[in-house]
């Protein structure tokens, strides 16, 4: 699981035994039998070649990754104002572009890998049941970290 505790808590709640391992060590950990599974988006599965060591992709669809484009405030403060404005405007648009890009290419990547015999998609019919088990964990976590308001707004969006 990712290092953030909510990931381990959620997957423990659905009956699995998650372990935290650094991203660049997952391939070797699977290859050496330390773990037998991991989770990632199609882009990561392709880029890191996880399919070489773990070719069965269970379509749990348990998360949609959000990946902020970040910029150093210390650097920003040293830049001319018009460059600061350009950075802020460009950041939003680049983020929108990135989301559209990654989401539109996912199926293509998985189709390509499966057709090449490198990966096998395994249907997963219990996502709703999985979510039901995870929901109380998420609600408790949101309360613990003071994110109930944001959680509610996200849920009704």
């Amino acid at each position, binding site marked *: 699981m*990712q*290092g*953030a505790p909510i990931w381990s808590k*959620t997957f423990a709640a659905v*009956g*699995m*035994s*998650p*372990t935290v391992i650094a*991203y660049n060590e*997952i391939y070797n*950990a*699977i290859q050496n*039998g330390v*773990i*037998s*599974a*991991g*989770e990632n*988006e199609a*882009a990561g*599965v392709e880029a890191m070649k996880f399919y070489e*060591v*773990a*070719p069965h992709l*269970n379509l749990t*669809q*348990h*998360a*949609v*990754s959000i990946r902020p*484009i*970040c910029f150093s*405030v210390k*650097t*920003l*403060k*040293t*830049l*001319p104002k018009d460059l600061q*404005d*350009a950075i*802020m405007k*460009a950041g*939003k648009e*680049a*983020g929108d*572009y*990135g989301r559209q*890009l990654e*989401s539109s290419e996912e199926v293509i990547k998985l189709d390509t890998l499966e057709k090449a015999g490198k990966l096998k998609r395994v249907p997963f019919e*219990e996502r709703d*049941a999985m979510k039901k088990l*995870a929901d109380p964990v*998420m609600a408790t976590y949101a309360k613990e*970290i*003071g994110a109930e308001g*944001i*959680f509610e707004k*996200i849920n009704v969006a």
Partner: protein
Amino acid sequence: MKRRSFLAGIGATTAAATIGMPSILRAQAPITLNGAVQFNDDHAFNRALIRFEELVKKYYGKPVNFTLHKNSSLGLEKQYFEYMSQGKAVDYGIVSPAHMSTFAKAAPFIDAPFVFKGIEHMNKVVEANILAPIADEVAAKAEVVLIGYSGGGIRNIFATSRSRISPISRASRFACRARRSGRRPLRQSA
């Protein structure tokens, strides 16, 4: 967080004011911004950051250089965030919210399982600026601005065997099988 209010927060007194006072050296020398990413140019993150560079050049209209350090040459996302917070080595990059928890407890929450129903839902949340309180906290405490939201990939579980993953009773058998074979069942990533 509205961009104008953020820029005001870091020093502008009016919309036309210069934010802070650039050093004389910085103002005269060509500006070079250093980015970092874990992947190669085929990955959506790289392409989003290259699009970012193109857009900055377009909107700024003056010379500005970018150096994007790829393939984890500057380490992993956790390190990029630390460098950006310190104001050294890395000026921009794409970072998982999981690495921001030291500064903003709620940050990892937006990247947790089952938060987003799909890409359309994520788009609505981003456009409605619902994540602004988290971005504000990260900017204030870590001194890193979240200038856009990339991602959108759907996460699945990749496994070595054809064992079905089930949240009901079979899940424990999957885990038990993995333990008996000396293997831990599940692990992950950025």
